[in-house]
């Protein structure tokens, strides 16, 4: 690891985004607008909005960072910049950490905006601290970045990579407890949901919603999400090969 190269990579990724204001606008505004939409969907039942809104605050950063990272790293692979970088003295960890830092920073802005809007404007009632919501959102964003980096190795085109979104992300959304409590699912599905990281992201959000102080379960949930993100990042590093056929 080399701090100069890692930071240069983060700066480069952010500079690329800065030339694309529409993407930044969509990244920041869409979660916020969807929350407003959801608020009015549950017009007659604001307490349902609390639990689903809190879950969505964990899901948005994961989904958006997954998409952005998978496409960005696929582009690195297909345009030859990855081959060029790996022929230079750049460590794989520098590249991955550079991406994680850049998208992590973006995720903090996105999640702050969405959490702020939910808590102060839409009156999302949470017992715990909004800072804990933000922490889980950041970990989710890292998980999304890690998953995106990993799946980009298995896609040859942007068409293929976006298909990984329904394949990798949707099952997790269906099984994470957003639609039905996980312990009420068919036992096989419950077992599967127990090994999917997004389940812990949503559980963590729910803990913050219900409890004033960080509980043991919250710490476990946050640790599982962080651990999964690190594991998938390491798997992503394995897919970056200096020598290719």
């Amino acid at each position, binding site marked *: 690891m080399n701090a*100069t*190269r890692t930071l*240069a*990579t983060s*700066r*480069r990724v952010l*500079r*690329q985004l800065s*030339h*694309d204001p529409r993407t930044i606008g969509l990244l920041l505004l869409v979660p916020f607008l969807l929350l407003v939409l959801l608020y009015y969907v549950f017009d007659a039942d604001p307490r349902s909005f609390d639990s689903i809104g809190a879950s969505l605050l964990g899901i948005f950063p994961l989904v958006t960072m997954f998409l952005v990272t998978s496409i960005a790293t696929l582009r690195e692979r297909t*345009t*030859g*910049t990855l*081959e*060029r*970088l*790996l*022929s*230079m*003295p*750049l460590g794989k960890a520098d590249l991955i950490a550079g991406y994680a830092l850049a998208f992590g920073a973006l995720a903090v802005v996105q999640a702050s905006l969405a959490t702020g809007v939910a808590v102060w404007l839409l009156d999302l009632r949470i017992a715990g601290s909004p800072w804990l919501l933000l922490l889980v959102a950041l970990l989710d964003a890292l998980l999304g970045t890690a998953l995106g980096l990993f799946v980009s190795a298995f896609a040859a085109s942007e068409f293929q990579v976006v298909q990984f979104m329904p394949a990798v992300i949707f099952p997790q959304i269906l099984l994470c407890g957003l639609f039905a409590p996980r312990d009420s699912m068919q036992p096989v599905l419950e077992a599967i949901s127990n090994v999917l990281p997004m389940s812990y992201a949503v559980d963590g959000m729910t803990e913050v919603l219900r409890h004033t102080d960080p509980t043991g379960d919250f710490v476990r949930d946050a640790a599982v999400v962080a651990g999964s993100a690190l594991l998938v990042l390491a798997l992503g590093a394995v897919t970056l*090969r*200096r*020598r*290719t*056929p």
Partner: protein
Amino acid sequence: MMNKPPAVSARGLTVVRGARTVLDGLAFDVEPGSVTGLLGPSGSGKSTLIRAIVGTQAKVTGTLDVLGWPAGSASLRSRVGYVTQAPSVYDDLTARQNLEYFAAVLGVPRRERPEQRDRVLSDVDLTAHADDLAGNLSGGQRSRVSLAVALLGTPELLVLDEPTVGLDPVLRRDLWALFHRLAADRGVTLLISSHVMDEADRCEQLLLLREGSLLASGTPRELRDLTGTDTVEDAFLTLVDSARQHEYPR
């Protein structure tokens, strides 16, 4: 240049891609400080050989030493400049931003980066377009940004995969002048691939590649004399014909 070890030295160099043997037992040396042309038709294995030299090609067997180290060694990564055939720069960054990033990756000290960036931009005649997004530049301009990246730092060996393809004659002449200047003034070794035979006469040494085998090597004059022809293109065609007769004797 007294008895310096070769910049690139290959013995029994073989590369397999899938089921195909793309390079088959190559043996050659590249003189240090020379401008060496790697010539051959499309599909002859030029890009694969270049990727083997810069250490991005898998399944390389035989001996391949670059600047005295096995190709792909970590210590070579800042000493060898590499330009891929398709321009490998970020289309959503300006030319200047591309160079700043790659300079940081190459480990150029921060205070030297602006000077280096401006030097390589003027080397490839892009100073006027420094603040244009690479994606908005013409194809030729974009490939020059890619070339400029390879000039950053202090590469001792530059490996360029078809750097002049698709460029206009004036620009091609200027780039070849730049290549010779780099060799003469900074002692850089350049290995430049091309499928355009009329560029051969601009090189000091030539490697002629055909279907993964080395057809001939030497100076342009040696190759012309060897075959009794007037141009390197004719020399290449003569050599191909005699190789074919050898392969399919009638």
